[in-house]
């Protein structure tokens, strides 16, 4: 299998021991990326009696959570029980499983920085990529986005609004990368050598404990360069060989083991 390498490799190192699972990253992500709140009724649907209600946020199979926090359990009974929280953005795999299966090249990993792109107008909604992604990082728009009346006036300029029928996923808040490069150009700096913190993702920025570290894994001046080499660092399902650009860290052995899917029979979910 071929891992695509780039000079710049944007990556995350998420410190699970610092994540309380508060959900601020998920909210920040939805707001930044114009993910509409899940609403059951559609005031613009004039044939409601004939149609089914839309799904609300309780149906986790239909929610769009580019960033999703999972709860881990060590599987032991009270009082030996331990929990941990695992935020899951798109892994931006070095060898993404989603890219080769796309029949229309709506998703690709071809930009310097290694962020896997998703072009919504190109997507035909076949969802092969969703089937291929072992991290469940991709989401399908089962419904048209619908903001309750008046709420669509406060949309983020950062991400185009997707219609029903296309697949979407985390892109490390890619337009912030564009903006960081613009800023660098204005300041006479090299846009291909951004300093630490010049480009941040919404989830990283909002996280109250700083559990999410973000930067160029290849750049020794970025904190993630050292962090991802820590003995406590690991990647999810590393044995699949997809070579994710998102790393996790935990001092707890049971967490590291679950990350690599050695938890046969465990109750992590």
């Amino acid at each position, binding site marked *: 299998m071929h891992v695509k390498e780039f000079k710049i490799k944007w990556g995350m190192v998420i410190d699970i021991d610092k994540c309380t699972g508060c959900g601020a990253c998920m*909210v920040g992500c939805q707001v930044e990326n114009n993910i509409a709140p899940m609403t059951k009724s559609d005031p613009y649907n004039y044939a409601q009696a004939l149609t089914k209600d839309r799904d609300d946020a309780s149906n986790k199979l239909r929610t769009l959570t580019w960033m999703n926090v999972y709860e881990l359990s060590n599987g032991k009974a009270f009082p030996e029980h331990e929990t941990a929280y695992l935020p899951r953005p798109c892994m931006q795999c070095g060898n993404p499983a989603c890219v080769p299966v796309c029949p229309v090249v709506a998703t690709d990993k071809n930009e310097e920085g290694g962020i896997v792109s998703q072009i919504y107008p190109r997507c035909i909604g076949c969802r092969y990529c969703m089937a291929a992604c072992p991290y469940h990082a991709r989401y399908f728009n089962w419904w048209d986005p619908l903001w309750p009346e008046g709420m669509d006036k406060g949309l983020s300029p950062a991400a185009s609004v997707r219609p029903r029928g296309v697949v979407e996923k985390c892109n490390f808040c890619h337009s912030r990368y564009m903006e960081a490069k613009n800023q660098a150009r204005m300041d006479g700096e090299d846009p291909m050598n951004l300093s630490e913190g010049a480009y941040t993702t919404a989830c990283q920025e909002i996280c109250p404990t700083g559990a999410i570290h973000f930067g160029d894994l290849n750049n020794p001046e970025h904190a993630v360069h050292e962090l991802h080499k820590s003995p406590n660092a690991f990647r999810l399902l590393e044995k699949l060989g997809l070579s994710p650009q998102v790393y996790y860290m935990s001092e707890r052995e049971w967490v590291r083991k679950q990350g690599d899917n050695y938890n046969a029979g465990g109750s992590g979910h």
Partner: protein
Amino acid sequence: MSVARRAFIQMSVGATVGILFTPTVWVALDDVSIWTQNWPWIPRLKYGEVKSVPTVSKMCDSGCAVKVRTCAGEAFAVAGNEDNPLSGGGVCPLCANSAQVKNSPNRIKTPMLNGEEISWDKAKEVVAEKLDAAGSSVAVISGDQNGTVNEVFSALLADKGSDAFYMMPCDMQAADKAWTGLMGGYGQIGYDLEGADVVLLAGADALESWGPTVANLKAFAANGSGKFLFAGPMQTKTAAVADKWVPVPAEGMAAFTLGVAYYVLQAGMTVDVADFAPFRAMVMNDYSPAKVEAATGVKADRMAAIAKQLLAASNPVVVPGGSVAAHGAAFALNLLLGGAMKAVPEFGKAVSTAMSRSEMLNKDILEGVNADLLFVYEANPAYALPEQVKAGFTVAFDSVNTETTASADLVLPTLHGFERFDDLASPYGVADATYSLGVPVSKPSVNAACAATFVLGLADLGFETFEEVLEAKAEAVGADMDALAEGGAYVAPGETPVAAGLAANVLGKAAVPVKGSGALGLVPYTLLNVGTANRATTPNAPCTISNNQLLGDKMVVMMNSATAKQLGVGVGSKVKLSGGNGECEALVQVFEGVLTGAVAAPLGMGHTVGDEFSKGKGDNVYKILTVSSEAAAGASTWAGSTVNVAKI
């Protein structure tokens, strides 16, 4: 005939072939494909200058210092404010969604008198008339724990000769009753979580919902070497990242703390107060580890190990949560240990006739409110305390529709946090006196007004507008208004706490665990993304609420497998919880992080008024909480609530 028909067909074929030799078809196909990419019902984005404007957000109880991100002047997102110690760049999940709440259709759009739209002038007339008629039978319930708006409301009460100022139940109140009331201490208790080397969170869910949550999380992250221990009946999100979870029932927290104090006293630690000897005797006699173990189920060696850790630390701190007794016990233990507990001096008042914070916390809302005229400011007692609050005429100030505004006689829409002046004066728990100011970021989008300015128009309190009050406040604080408006906080260091006594005789009695008569202990817990007593969940937050709290429209309660087995229920069982004077329906989830014999239920769901994100979602656990009187401490508490669980 046949010739013409034939010619026509031939010409048509020619035309069809001909058109293919022009760009028409191909261009049309291209345009049609673009047309399918831009459906008219998909909203278009607006572009313009993107700015980050500092202000404060008061969605959560303690409030967050934030930067509002605007595009072409329209607020669209919230980011943290690195320059402010309350944020350090972080935001809580509730405040993170504040810009969406601002534009929500759930906003109250105009003043309403008994369901009829009225003008602000008319509203003022009505309130002035009621105020005259009520005499001194006026009360205020405030959902704001740390804003100068409380000074304005309390000054109005003082003007009318009333002292009926109530805050919604909070740990700040229990802390004040214990510290100022029982122990004669000065200032507001704070905890230096960043500087401490051992932190015992004795019931305080500090990294999820207690105190200045975001500041706590920042302190936790910055405190690289400190050990965090969490004691409580449930493995909360705080426990998930703490070094150790010590299962302790909520009603046993005071006894547990005194049990730890036993070892600390045994090690020879003292406090220079008049009643130290009786305190020591009380703990040594009544709260020996064996006795505490019998009463709370916490193993004596557990307490010994914790005491050892605290004694070995150079700067330990115990952070209480729950009853007044639990707070008193923790403060006594902190005084013994001499660690990172602080006394935060209160800032000077802006309105001279206003109450001090301690005076505002004096009245206990759980004991009931009854007045001819009641003002409710951004609080939701009709949801969280349906039985306690009664009034002849209720005036509810809020920005969004709640159970309280739905049942109020007069509803007055307040400006959203991003549309108004507001402030945050030392949220409970901060180690240093901290003052932050919020300035308007957006223009009002509905016919709302500033509640404090409205109140200033009802009586002569020395100010015309709330902005003037805040200018006076900044001056009283000694801060520069301009620097505050730019998002920086004014910080004055917390002081070493000094108490007059340890309230030995009261604590000894009040710390005895008192539990209700139900079969299972009830562990109510708060998650900010689910909402607080005053604020329901926000539009984008429901996606973050897990199946452990809500499944479909059903609330989920959690218990460990031993408890589930004892009850004969399993994952997905439908149960009815009855306690207090109410009932709740829920589904069972097995979660091993709950004390045996207890059931954990999320607070903040089951709204009957509001938007679709909270209304009809789950059930209201406040209905099944039992208020028990802490007779000895002269207070009341929800700790020790029990429920009966029946399978349905």
